[in-house]
């Protein structure tokens, strides 16, 4: 009996430790963003603010942080729309058209999932310069679409394969061709799969660092993760201000997460089970 209780208590402790580890860093981020820089200088990192100040947020916002938000949103939305449109087409072919070369291409897509961006980074950088897209936000769209395609196609294809074949037969009897069938039957029926995969993709694009670091350079083309990087040198001496930037930058994801956590975790699960 005693042993049973010790195990229970140990499990609770384990759960609590991880709860603290997950939350404390964010708590620190928020309280430090509310300090004045003098307060931070005097008392350091681990105290609560002497007086709650919103001044850091006001300064950061008037300093034009929203242009970085705009870049991030434009890149993520444009990339996502292109990605979903072409991934849906490809997944339709992979799940509904039974030809040997189509199957071979599917294997090729799966194989390309293991190629890391760092192998492709230098050639893509040179290519981007050649086609005069270097240091524009448009430069990011191609790589973002391409490197999210394999996993997106993989998840959507397995989703479309689940759609019952009888549906197909009755549609063929009604005399509808591949294009009609794709647009008016398969795509609407794949809605749940599309939402799942879209969540997975948009998080990875919103947070992407490597390509944005290499393919953009000037402040007006940088996405949010890179803007944080720039702010580090800009506000290096005013730490609370940097924390205000951090809080603002994680806010959209936190809000989206609060509203759609069920779907999001489902998306992560689908993405995680790709192996």
């Amino acid at each position, binding site marked *: 009996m005693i042993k049973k209780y010790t195990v229970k208590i140990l*499990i609770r402790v*384990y759960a609590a430790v*991880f*709860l603290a580890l*997950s939350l404390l*860093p*964010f708590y*620190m*981020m928020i309280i430090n963003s509310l300090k004045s820089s003098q307060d931070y200088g005097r008392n350091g*990192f*681990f105290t609560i603010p002497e007086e709650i100040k919103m001044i850091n947020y006001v300064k950061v916002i008037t300093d034009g942080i929203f242009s970085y938000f705009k870049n991030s949103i434009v890149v993520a939305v444009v990339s996502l729309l292109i990605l979903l449109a*072409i991934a849906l*087409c*490809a997944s339709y*072919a992979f799940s509904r*058209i039974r*030809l040997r070369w*189509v199957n071979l291409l599917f294997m090729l*897509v799966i194989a390309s999932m*293991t*190629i*890391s961006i*760092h*192998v*492709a*980074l*230098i*050639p*893509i*950088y*040179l*290519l981007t310069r050649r086609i005069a897209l270097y240091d524009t936000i448009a430069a990011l769209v191609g790589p973002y*679409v*391409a*490197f999210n*395609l394999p996993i997106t196609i993989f998840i959507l294809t397995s989703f479309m394969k689940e759609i019952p074949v009888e549906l197909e037969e009755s549609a063929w009897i009604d005399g509808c061709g*591949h294009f009609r069938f*794709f647009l008016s039957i398969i795509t609407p029926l794949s809605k749940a799969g599309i939402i799942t995969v879209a969540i997975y993709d948009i*998080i990875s694009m919103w947070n992407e*660092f*490597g390509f944005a*670091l*290499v393919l953009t350079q000037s402040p007006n083309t940088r996405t*949010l*993760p890179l803007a*944080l990087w720039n702010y580090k040198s800009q506000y290096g001496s005013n730490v609370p201000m*940097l924390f205000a930037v*951090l809080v603002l*930058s*994680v806010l959209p*994801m*936190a809000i989206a*997460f609060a509203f759609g*956590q069920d779907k999001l*975790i489902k998306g*992560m*699960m689908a993405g*995680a*089970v790709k*192996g």
Partner: protein
Amino acid sequence: MRKRGTLKLNMTAAFFLLPAFFFIIVYIFYPVVDVFHLSTLDWNGISPNKINIGLENWKTLLHDKYFFTAALHNILIVVLSIVVQMPLAITLAFMLDRMGRRSGILKVIYYLPSLFSTTAVGLLFSFIYTPRNGIFTVISKLFGGGIVDVLGNPHTSLLAVFSVICWTAVPYYMVFYLAAFSGLPQELYEAAVIDSANLRQYFFGIALPLLKNSIKTACTLSLIGSLKYFDLVYIMTEGGPNYSSDLMATYMYRLTFKSRQMGYGATVAVGMFLIITTFTYLFQYLINRNAKEE
């Protein structure tokens, strides 16, 4: 008549696949081929004179102690990730799975660290580690010690960054295992309870063996992820001080875009590619061979 139908089907398939393969060829297949070509050049990336030096870069790479140090760091991260992150992720997922519906809010909070950009996380922890008034300095001063600079000390920099990697990676694998646990039928647990098995017996005797394939997949993902790791190390230390936290990807990045050695940087990238591919297949072979012996 029939032949035309097949032709039409082929054309339809090609039409559906063309856009996807345009992107995959331009941004994945072509770069992989091109990087091999670049590795034979002595070139700074800008000037018009590219000098073809054949295998010179490869000879340099084989004697480049910085590259091998970086590769060793990668392998250390691989081992540590599997040893540290997997047990934590599995036990957390098991706990959440057993809690059932009540796990809702806990699941959400545990997942938070994986949600945010590596830049935000990296900057946040740079301040938590800061020497002047960071967490280790505060603790050391409590015991009468002095300033502790974990990121600036070559002996601790890699471990300091690795703990942050764990902080973001554990929730990711937790969700992965949660998906695997939720795939196990509930009757299995009920049957085990009827046979008076306790939680520990159920976990080690029933759940873990059934999850063997998921664990293999997660370890493979972790292996690939650790070999190509870049973000947090670059953000927090840029590979320093004095190469002590350098990884293959950060080394490649600095060579290419800071020292402007495009050709040699490409060689390092190919070296990385070969190492990742070899290790992945070797690892797959080893874990599947053991499975057959059983």
